[in-house]
């Protein structure tokens, strides 16, 4: 059996996900036993239009992007969205809820009128059909290897459908909402007593783990920070319940929406349109 030919393409994004792949180090040699890489700008100079699997990084943000993407879709047997920007719109879609002219002016100044970007940054599947998704900002290297292995074997990759809380509990982390002498069960008046002035000085604890797709082994919470939602919403998030939780811990509606907009912008918009 000949090795499947693999190509990487970047659109609007920081290329951090391809960097994760390039940084696989010794594993990359093992991976090259399984596949042949024909396009990978960060690593090799040659190019080819003959490939079986296309990994797409970045959001799609212009007619030019869309045209290029459609061509890739025609060439590739399997299209994989690589990383948050490609898979869910990611950070790029923060701007989707803002005034596009202002955004362009803020970024490009006097050259703003030369920019031919769409008003919204979109994930790959808003333009072409996507076969598989690798979530995360950046992607998890082990998960990338798992997806490649699965595709080579013709198997469905095993990507969790449950939220980050599952991995957090397995790791026996103290819940973000229960840190610093807090409790997972608390009324807002009790919280004020426990951390006097907290409501004015800084917002209450927040964590997007309860609605974010797992698969990261809750690594941010393991390291003492919080889940920012980089892997996107789970398939059936209970946002109302989650917002009630955040409200209970003293986040205002605006703060909650801000947190949700960091990575969930496009997904939220899609859900609202349903």
């Amino acid at each position, binding site marked *: 059996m000949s090795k499947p030919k693999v190509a990487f393409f970047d659109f609007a994004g920081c290329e951090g996900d391809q960097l994760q792949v390039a940084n696989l180090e010794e*594993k990359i040699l*093992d*991976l090259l*036993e*399984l596949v042949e890489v024909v396009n990978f700008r960060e690593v090799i100079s040659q190019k080819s239009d003959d490939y079986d699997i296309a990994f797409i990084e970045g959001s799609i943000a212009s007619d030019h992007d869309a045209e290029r993407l459609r061509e890739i879709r025609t060439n590739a047997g399997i299209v994989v969205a690589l990383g948050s920007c490609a898979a869910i719109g990611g950070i790029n879609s923060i701007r989707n809820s803002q005034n596009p002219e202002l955004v362009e002016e803020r970024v490009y100044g006097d050259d703003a009128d030369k920019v031919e970007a769409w008003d919204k940054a979109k994930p790959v599947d808003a333009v072409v059909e996507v076969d598989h998704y690798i979530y995360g900002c950046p992607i998890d290297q082990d998960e990338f*290897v*798992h997806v490649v*292995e699965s595709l*080579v*074997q013709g198997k469905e990759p*095993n990507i969790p*459908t*449950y*939220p980050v*809380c*599952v991995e957090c*509990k*397995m*790791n*026996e*982390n*103290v*819940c973000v*909402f*229960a*840190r*610093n*002498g*807090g*409790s*997972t*069960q608390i009324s807002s008046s009790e919280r004020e007593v426990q951390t006097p002035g907290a409501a004015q000085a800084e917002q209450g604890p927040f964590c997007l*783990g*309860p*609605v974010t797709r797992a698969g990261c082994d809750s690594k941010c919470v393991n390291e003492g920070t919080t889940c920012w939602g980089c892997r996107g919403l*789970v*398939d*059936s998030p*209970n946002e*109302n*319940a*989650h917002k*009630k*939780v955040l409200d209970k811990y003293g986040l205002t509606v605006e703060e909650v929406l801000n947190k949700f907009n960091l990575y969930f912008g496009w997904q939220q918009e899609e859900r609202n349109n349903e």
Partner: protein
Amino acid sequence: MKAINKNDFSEFVDDLIENDDREVVGVQTKSNEFAFDPLKSAEDLRLDYDVTILPPKKYFMPQRETLVEYNLNEGETTPVNQVVPRIIMGIHPYDLVAIEQMDKVFEDTHEDPYYLEKRRQSVLVGVNMANVSDRSFAHTMGTATTDTGYDIMLTDIGDRYAIEVGSSKGSNLLEKAGQAVDDITTDEIRKVKQFKEELPKKFKKDTKFDPFELPSLLKNYYENDEFWEENAEDCLSCGTCNLVCPTCYCFDVQDVNDISLSEGERLRTWDGCMLEAFAEVAGDENFREEKAARYRHRYMRKGRYMYNRFGDIACVGCGRCSEQCLPDIADPVEVFNQMKEGTS
């Protein structure tokens, strides 16, 4: 009953940590909560804790464990059982009751060597509850104290711990403490008795049901869709109530190939019936697609199904699910009280 000075007990624990071949684990603080973790010093052991984040089931059924290693080229499979013999310090009675229930589950019909071997090679050092968490209702479930399930059981009676021996594993362990273990005095026996008698007063939850009513209450409520939908409305389907439960034992099994694609391992990981894909089967069918159906299933399982099969009410009243559920909808007391009030 025996007794040991607290200082001597600390020395005994330190001696075990240093000289015993087994891993010594015990309850310690983890930030502002408690967890069972390997002990580095007896100083870290907190026998006055109220409840741990996870129950000690993680030592018999780890979150992730390899069951089999295989080589596809050679067609070879090698069973693996990663057993770490352990002395587990500071298990509360409700968790001991839960472990006894799990022993039945893993012995029944299809013996599970992975669980059972880890159990056999563990020594369980129980401790009566010096403190009670706000959400615990072990007093109602009859699990605030126990006469079985431990190898030894400690009770804090001031300067000394009273020790009850529950098995030869326990007496063998105590032998290592040598002369430090003393006979208990009549006055101290009275203290232990008093400790157990006064314990129910420390519980804060107001329960209106008797645990043995649960199978019939649940049966009557099975088809009350509105009841389950209302209670499950804010469920995040995060599985927390399953994962922290000392009697939840469901797992998922996956074959994970290494990058060579010729070698790999069969991996068992915790699963939970509250997770959306738990009841998903081939063909993308899901027979508990709605969160209310999953929510109901958890209660049926705890209060009815396990009772029908093993004679146990599979809720031991530890309060972990209730304590750790962010939307605060997982408190069995609230649900069982509602049922009781709606019935009478």
